[in-house]
């Protein structure tokens, strides 16, 4: 099996469209909503989750045969917690302002259901390399939604993107967009569009 065989490509590409972790598998909603009031934390969060998902998938996949079934959740949590601690320290050192904005949500990556979901559903049963790709794919699928929601919320809530003024000064920020409630409604609408678009494919399954 080549490194980028057809099967591997599918593992990577599927979470980006049809099998998106947030919209279809309903994983990792919590942090997806809280960090998206601006674009920058959304991007950082997406990247952090991608990296952590990929590496925890690889580690668990390597040791999958020696983990006793009964305590596997604790083993997985410890692996993830260690990776999250590393990422959180790196963020504090190199991007302090973002890590302050993300506050507890960096720590909450540990309990992000995407990680546990992928570990249970994929890494426990597959070889390291496909697991790595699966982690990257799901992380990017997650990041994609975060970036869409963050983009809309920052653009209409403040008239800026990544802190730069985009809309003319006369635009009055829509405070509603920066409220938590709006993130939920926006995500609902994204799911609506996604389902409407892929509806026929779901039907034929």
């Amino acid at each position, binding site marked *: 099996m080549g490194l980028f065989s057809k099967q591997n490509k599918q593992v990577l590409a599927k979470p980006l469209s049809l099998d998106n972790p947030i*919209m279809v598998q*309903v*994983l*990792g*909603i*919590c*942090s*997806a*909503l*809280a960090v998206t009031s601006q674009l920058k934390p959304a991007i950082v969060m997406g990247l952090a989750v991608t990296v952590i998902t990929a590496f925890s998938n690889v580690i668990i996949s390597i040791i999958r045969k020696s983990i006793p079934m009964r305590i596997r*959740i*604790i083993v997985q*949590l*410890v692996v993830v*917690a*260690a990776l*999250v*601690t590393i990422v*959180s*320290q790196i963020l504090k050192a190199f991007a302090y302002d973002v890590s302050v904005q993300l*506050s*507890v949500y960096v*720590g*909450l990556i*540990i*309990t*992000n*259901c995407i990680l*546990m979901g992928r570990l249970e559903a994929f890494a426990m049963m597959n070889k390291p390399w496909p697991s790595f790709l699966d982690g990257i794919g799901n992380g990017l699928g997650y990041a994609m939604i975060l970036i869409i929601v963050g983009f809309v919320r920052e653009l209409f809530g403040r008239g800026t993107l990544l802190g730069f003024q985009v809309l003319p000064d006369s635009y009055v920020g829509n405070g509603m967009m920066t*409220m*938590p*409630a*709006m*993130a*939920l*409604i926006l*995500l*609902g*609408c994204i*799911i*609506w*569009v996604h*389902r*409407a678009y892929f*509806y026929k494919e779901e039907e034929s399954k």
Partner: protein
Amino acid sequence: MEHLINLFFRSIFVDNMIFAFFLGMCSFLAVSKNVKTSIGLGAAVTFVLVVTVPVDYLLQVHVLEPLGLSYLSFILFIAVIAGMTQIVEMVVERYSPSLYSSLGIFLPLIAVNCAIMGASLFMQQRINLDPASSQYIGNVWDAIVYAFGSGLGWMLAITLMGAIREKMQYSDVPKPLQGLGITFITVGLMAMAMMCFSGLKI
């Protein structure tokens, strides 16, 4: 005393885990299909919160802080939570098998319920707040009250959602919006209503 009451009501209504911080959404969305299971899961989450947050508080103040090991807090907190969840799971299985089977996979998943980890992490932040603030957590009682309030707030949210979803089964929702989509929008509208409580002071 006044501070405790204030903290309690704030954590239920203003700092509601679901409506203000979106914590615990995964199980919230998956289990809130009817009122009975919702209450059961809400009670289980509240119980785990009330036990883990004070334990984590004591660990943070008496072990991690004096030794300068605060960066290990993630691993330590998650270990406490995973252990507690295991105990709750065994207790529920023994005394209420029907609840055990209806909660299914979501019982062990309380360990990865963001609301519980989130409460511990918020607690960790709040230790450093100004003692005059109504969110300040300064001793074990504060931690217990905060945990209990957050748990009740979560339970309130999931019960309301369960009730709404029971009714919603009879409404005519556009097909692509059915299920997840409409649930999100409903939670969004509920969150907007809950915003009326912000600024609440007792």
